[in-house]
């Protein structure tokens, strides 16, 4: 089951929005399936994500999310089941997250300041009964200028893992400085650059390295009118460098079951299916390396998101 890609990712985003009143809520359901190409140890993976967000006007937001993910291992891999590795043929993970964001618009500086605090709780368990857990606390401060053409944020995440089969108990911290800016006068093109600087307090978890660093670039193009095939938004992204145990504040997920991530890229397109529906498709590939067993591989995926508003 290695090699060729088998990827199907579906996501259904359900969005509700009050016509009047201060509360706006939206929810999403997202399913993912992916495949590991060139991996001796891993076969494929899948995930299901549920997210719900309620905004009080533009002033504050609360978030609640759940993600179930599943990784299948190659049962014929010689190192599989050895000490320090997952014993079963697959690992299931449950990730719960909740967050709160508060916005302020001080006249003295202009623009919008945001304070956000996310928390995550993870549990992982394989077929053989081995289990591990982790929690993450991730604050973020952000600023968007008055004309909404420039954005900064600084995020921090402290992750604490327990009973990891490879590394036992260990803690990781992450700093994510981010800048975003309009790449055209009409505001239809947007670029975001985010640095991922991860520090490991116990290097056994990060294969002897005390830190990893990566830069992620995202480009979004919003069409002024319906473009090719009716596409309204294009998304492109790439990551260079390396990162481990990253926490992604945009998609609210924790990369806890991955090895060292290297060069990665994705491309996506969004459609509006009327006033209350939208469709998002993303394809991506991510490179990973497990230095302990010299396993270099790629994770390939396709994402399909259907959203609804009513």
């Amino acid at each position, binding site marked *: 089951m290695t090699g060729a890609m088998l990827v199907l990712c579906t996501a259904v985003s359900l969005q509700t929005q009050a016509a009047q*009143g201060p509360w706006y809520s939206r929810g999403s359901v997202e399913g993912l399936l992916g495949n590991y190409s060139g991996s001796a140890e891993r076969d494929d993976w899948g995930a299901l994500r549920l997210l719900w967000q309620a905004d009080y006007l*533009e002033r504050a937001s609360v978030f609640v999310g759940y993600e179930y993910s599943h990784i299948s291992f190659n049962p014929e891999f010689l190192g599989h089941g050895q000490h320090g590795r997952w014993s079963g043929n697959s690992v299931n993970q449950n990730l719960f997250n909740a967050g709160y964001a508060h916005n302020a618009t001080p006249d003295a500086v202009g623009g*919008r300041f945001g304070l956000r605090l996310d928390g995550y709780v993870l549990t992982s368990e394989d077929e053989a009964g081995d289990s591990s857990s982790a929690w993450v606390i991730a604050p973020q401060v952000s600023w968007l200028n008055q004309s909404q053409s420039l954005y900064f944020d600084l995020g921090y995440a402290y992750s604490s893992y327990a009973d990891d089969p490879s590394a036992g108990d260990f803690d990781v911290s992450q700093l994510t400085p981010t800048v975003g800016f309009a790449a055209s006068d009409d505001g239809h093109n947007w670029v975001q650059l985010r640095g991922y600087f991860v520090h490991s307090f116990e290097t056994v978890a990060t294969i002897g390295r005390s830190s990893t660093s990566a830069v992620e670039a995202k480009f979004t193009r919003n069409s002024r*009118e319906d473009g090719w095939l009716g596409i309204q938004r294009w998304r492109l992204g790439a990551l260079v460098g390396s990162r481990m145990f990253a926490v992604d504040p945009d998609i609210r997920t924790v990369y806890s079951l991955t090895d060292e991530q290297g060069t990665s890229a994705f491309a996506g397109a969004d459609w509006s299916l009327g006033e209350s529906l939208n469709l998002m498709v993303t394809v991506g590939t991510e490179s990973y390396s497990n230095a302990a067993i010299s396993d270099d591989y790629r994770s390939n995926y396709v994402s399909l998101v259907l959203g609804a508003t009513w």
Partner: protein
Amino acid sequence: MKRRKGRFGAALAVALLLALIPGVAGSHPWIDSYTLETQQRYTEALAALEPVLAQRPVNEFAVMRSGWLLYLAGKYNESLSAYQRALELNPRSLDARLGLTLPLLAQKRWREAAMHAQQVLETAPWNYYAHVRLMVSQEGQGQWEALARHAADVAARYPTDATLYVYLGRAEAKLGNVEKAKAAYRAVLERVPGHYEASDFLATH
């Protein structure tokens, strides 16, 4: 000399007339405030009103005007507070609720501005300003289908108004309805010949 006497007499007559108007007698804060506003000296225009704002009972109109001047001065949060204060003084005031939308739109707080505009429309369903400010909010949120419907609906009530056709044109263009957008922009040019956005769209489509 005779002409100078005439001017002095006219000024004196205005001052005497103003002195007879309740709330203006004994000072010229309103004249000063309006004059300074025309000179875009908004903070000073507000300062000129301070004697009136200090009066008790509270002068509702002075509070409203302070909200306007604070908005013009870019002090949006203080402007919001002033309009909120005016609304507390007179909960039936549509002016105060519409006033709230101005600093909110300036801060790009689209939803909150829309909420207040919709509250005005509950009382005054075809209030022009409430509709236009709701359209600004819809545009800011990218609600193009709703904006197109809304602009067309209000344009039917105010068919001489160019602004509504501009919003209709923008929404139809965003939705990819080029012919409908062109029709709307042509209507804009009939009302405001030389309108830049309409001319530009029609020249490029």
